[in-house]
């Protein structure tokens, strides 16, 4: 943990009256809360902590800031009660000022509520639920990276426009899967496509052969995988076995990360189409950063979650510096005022509902022959401009939007 000395002059000069405009205890504490040991450990996990530390170091080096910043981390084990309890303890006892990452929508919603109650900052990059900037929006929450609406619309409309106009869904039978299926179906139909059918499978299913058979029988051009994690990788692996892609149908992953593709291998995953908001090989800046990240992360290249953690912390520190306080509600308000600019996501903004806006990219997994080495997995099929990538402000049902 790198700890830099801070000149107390700022705080003292402002005096007791403006005591609120101080960094609490003189340290800005940021907690990385994610899944370190199961489903999402490779998507975020310890890599997010590496990204967080890089962000702090780079910020201080670039701006010569006198801020003292500390990074903590904990494993929420994908359990909402563990996550909410760690958040409470961090806020109440350890004086943590901001919590970052938080994959798993159940945990994310719980932590969002706690952060609101305590007036702290909730900087979510890992979770998918679009409710975080919709029904459950909060003045303390920033949702940086992606959400179900973006995934559905990005992947759905881009694929329909390139000819994939008949769909069949393999849906994970729980709220997240249903939401993905519903949102993507709407987009497909709105763009002139047809949904030929869907089958809902229980979460954590091992064997998809029966469902894949139904998908094959439907003769849909695109099979949408409205599931995540092991369910997605298992469906893709078995789809390869059943010759789905060779038979002419294409697979659309609705939530896929670089770590999933790495786990599958190109032979199995080739041809898979999905949307993400970051890839290490997009441009010179992302490449340079990713090489530095990989060096600090045991050779593993960054997923979009890692990039999100880095970028959101940079922006948070900028906001804290600007208002000279780490009060959560004020910092988030400042983050919405300042335009964002970082080497990974480029220029963007954070809307009133907490939604960060940046472009999204439609990727296709390369064939083994097209790849030049490890982690050289994606080719860019289309770019979705920032103003179309996310749900329109008025449609979310967020109470912060008048």
């Amino acid at each position, binding site marked *: 943990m790198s700890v830099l000395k801070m000149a107390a002059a700022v705080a003292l000069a402002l005096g007791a009256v403006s005591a609120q405009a101080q960094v609490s205890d003189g340290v800005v504490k940021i907690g990385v809360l994610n899944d370190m040991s199961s489903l999402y450990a490779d998507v975020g996990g310890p890599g997010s902590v590496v990204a967080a530390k890089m962000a702090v170091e780079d910020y201080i080096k670039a701006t010569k800031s006198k801020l003292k910043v500390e990074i903590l*981390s*904990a*494993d929420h*084990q994908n359990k909402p*009660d563990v996550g*909410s309890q760690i958040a409470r*303890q961090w806020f109440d006892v350890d004086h943590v000022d901001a919590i970052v990452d938080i994959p798993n929508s*159940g945990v994310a*919603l719980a932590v969002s509520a706690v952060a609101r109650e305590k007036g702290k900052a909730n900087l979510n990059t890992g979770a998918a639920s679009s409710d975080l900037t919709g029904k459950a929006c909060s003045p303390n929450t920033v949702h940086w990276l992606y959400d179900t609406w973006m995934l559905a619309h990005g992947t759905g409309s881009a694929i329909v426009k390139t000819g994939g106009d008949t769909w069949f869904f393999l849906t994970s039978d729980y*709220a997240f899967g249903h939401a993905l299926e519903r949102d993507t179906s709407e987009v497909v139909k709105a763009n002139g496509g047809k949904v030929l059918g869907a089958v809902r499978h229980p979460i954590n299913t091992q064997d998809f052969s029966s469902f894949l058979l139904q998908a094959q029988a439907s003769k849909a051009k695109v099979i949408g995988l409205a599931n995540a994690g092991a369910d997605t990788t298992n469906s893709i692996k078995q789809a390869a076995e059943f010759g789905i892609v060779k038979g002419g149908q294409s697979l659309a992953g609705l939530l896929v990360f670089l770590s999933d593709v790495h786990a599958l291998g190109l032979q199995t995953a080739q041809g898979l189409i999905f949307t993400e908001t970051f890839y290490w090989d997009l441009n010179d800046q992302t490449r340079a950063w990713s090489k530095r990240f990989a060096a600090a992360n045991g050779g593993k290249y960054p997923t979009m979650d890692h990039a999100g953690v880095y970028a959101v912390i940079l922006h948070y520190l900028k906001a804290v510096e600007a208002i000279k306080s780490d009060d959560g509600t004020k910092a988030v308000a400042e983050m919405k005022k300042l335009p964002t600019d970082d080497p990974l996501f480029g220029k963007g903004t954070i809307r009133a509902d907490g939604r960060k806006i940046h472009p999204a990219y439609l990727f296709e997994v390369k064939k083994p022959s097209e790849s030049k080495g490890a982690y050289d997995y994606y080719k860019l099929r289309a770019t979705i401009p920032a103003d179309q990538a996310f749900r329109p402000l008025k449609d979310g049902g967020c109470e912060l939007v008048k």
Partner: protein
Amino acid sequence: MSRAQRIAFGVMLAFFLLAPLVLYPVFLMKVMCFALFACAFNLLIGFGGLLSFGHAMFLGTAGYVSAHAAKVWGCPPELAILLGTLSAAALGLVTGLLAIRRQGIYFAMITLALSQMIYFYCLQAPFTHGEDGIQSVPRGTLFGFIDLSNIWAMYATVLVVFVAGFLLIYRAIHSPFGQVLKSIRENEARAISLGYDTTRYKFLAFVLSAALAGLAGATKAIVFQLASLTDVHWTMSGEVVLITLLGGMGTIFGPVAGALVIITMENYLAQLGAWVTVAQGVIFVICVLAFRRGIVGEIAHFLKKPL
């Protein structure tokens, strides 16, 4: 209570009264809820000799009902907790009718099967919100005037619930009912030959255990203001077995000690990620091989007095 037990009770009470001044109160409330859960479980295994591998279904179901009652129906917390407890008792009645006629390993397996069914139901039922769980459950005002969002009011409430549940179990064990239960555990055939309807006694113990596990779950939902799938998953059933085994099966205070150790370990080792599971597994193995009496059991053995 015997002298040793009175001292132990005093130590326990003093700990929970004084510790919140030093330790994080929310952490202690979690310990108390799990201690009650484990005490309820221990009633069945330690004194009834029945290993239930599905106790999570009572904890979790009560949690969901309590959370739903408080959030959606706007019930005050005492009513929400009551409803949660009753739902667990009802579930105990139904599952008990199915499970109680079987012994040993078959009993464990059928409780596991039933608990899996409850898990899958909770995964799909709309009111539980599946993976998201029921969030932002209001703490409410107890009896109309005690505001439970005050941490001390909440703590006091949980303490009262815990002590009441604990004493109820103590009374149940040290009563004629408890004596018959113990005799069934020792030698069921003999108990039958003495004229006792052993099935009925086991069934009553099962429902009581279910209700008290439900009380723990319903209270926990109000404290943490959420109810999630974790509480109905089979690993939660495994966790309560671990807590009871470590603390000492068949002792009164064992489950409380076990809960304190395991929850502390989970909390403070959370940084270490998957090592927590490994540590839990190692504790299981060591306990079964060399430490079968558990913490309180060993102390009791040393003092040659029941604890």
